[in-house]
């Protein structure tokens, strides 16, 4: 193998890479927060008896779960562009991630909700708890335990998938890496460092998440 590694140029550009990593985190966190809010609404809509609401939710979930993320991003960026709606690369990637996160989390939330046995409601009721108390102290805490790990996984997935931003010229970690390597021709070095950064970010997220879980959920989980 004749390839000679030259790491210097990579370290000189570290501030830009770190900035890219920050944008990656930024878009993923925002996509997660918005995705959670929409997923709560979609889960409620899906369990609603009004056909219209549950059908809108079903269509959303089905498209989000059964089409490639790449396709969602292209639709947001080029597809909407064809209709004169020009989103910035950041907003296009964010919208696509929110769309997909909401789709997956809807099923997670619905499953979590339905997995609480009805006997938990009658037990709370029989103790004189109001509906609000029943949700606050009995149902939601148990639900949170069941959706916590799937939510963490969804967040990690968002971080990794935001790398598709490279395709629409977004300046997150992958896009920045792409730009820097094309200027310096140190392709392998830049992508190795970027991969390590992705690895470190997701590992830190998983570690933080399990620390938080240990604090939140002292009982069985």
């Amino acid at each position, binding site marked *: 193998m004749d390839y000679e590694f030259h790491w210097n140029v990579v370290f000189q550009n570290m501030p830009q890479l770190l900035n890219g990593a920050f944008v990656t985190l930024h878009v993923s966190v925002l996509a997660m927060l918005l995705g959670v809010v929409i997923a709560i609404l979609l889960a409620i809509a899906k369990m609603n008896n009004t056909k219209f609401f549950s059908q809108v939710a079903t269509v959303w979930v089905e498209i989000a779960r059964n089409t490639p993320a790449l396709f969602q991003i292209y639709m947001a960026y080029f597809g909407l562009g064809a209709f004169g709606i020009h989103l910035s690369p950041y907003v296009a990637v964010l919208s696509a991630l929110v769309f997909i996160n909401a789709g997956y989390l809807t099923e997670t939330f619905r499953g979590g909700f339905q997995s609480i046995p009805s006997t938990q409601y009658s*037990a709370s009721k029989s*103790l*004189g708890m109001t509906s609000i108390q029943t949700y606050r102290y009995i149902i939601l805490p148990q639900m949170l335990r069941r959706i916590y790990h799937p939510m963490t996984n969804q967040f990690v997935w968002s971080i990794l998938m935001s790398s598709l931003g490279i395709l629409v010229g977004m300046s997150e970690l992958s896009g920045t890496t792409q730009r820097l390597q094309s200027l310096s021709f140190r392709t392998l070095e830049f992508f190795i460092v970027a991969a390590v950064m992705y690895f470190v970010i997701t590992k830190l997220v998983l570690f933080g998440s399990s620390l938080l879980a240990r604090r939140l959920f002292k*009982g069985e989980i």
Partner: protein
Amino acid sequence: MISVQNVHKSFGDLEVLKGVSLDVKKGEVVSVIGGSGSGKSTLLYCINAIEPINRGKILVDDVDVHAKETNKDKLRQKLGMVFQQWNSFPHMTVLENAALAPRIVKKMSKEEAIEIAKKELEHVGLGDKFDVYPTKMSGGQQQRLAIARALAMKPDYMLLDEVTSALDPELVGEVLDTLRLLAEEGMTMICVTHEMGFARDVSDRVAYFHEGVIAEIGEARQVITDPQNPLTQKFLSKVR
């Protein structure tokens, strides 16, 4: 006193209670026996206002349970209920399970609620399990926890729905002993049960349920050992 007066209750087209009347006086223990699907659980749910009724009336200490103006959450504080399938709150310790309702429903201070919870847990023999999570306990222990959790609300009445039916046979005894203790202490109870020995020895009266009506009711020993109604005789000969 609990007074059930000519209660009718349907689920859709299925009439489950077809005119049930039953008075339970303070301090009395009434066991309800009968085949599965005869409406025994439904009766308890109606007394506790978990299920609405279609006709008739249920009074608890002269309060009309199903009247619109009745505060049902408040009423349920008087009626402790334990279900067939033990349903402890799995995300809380044993102590938290028992202290929760006194704290949030009765608005006791944390110290007061914990003191009462500890007392009732000791009462049912779970004094060494305060910090254990219920899923780590046997069915019998979880069922005793459910009893303590209900008792911590200081109910005037206990409604018990086949509390030993889902237990392994070797765990039935410890739960029945707990109920026996409550009966001796004068707790007013309605026990739906398949334990004929318990019904005979512990309760004052036994009611035999058949297809939504009380086919026979009388002094416990008499109904179990010398039933008058042929339906009761047939049922008892089968369960023995």
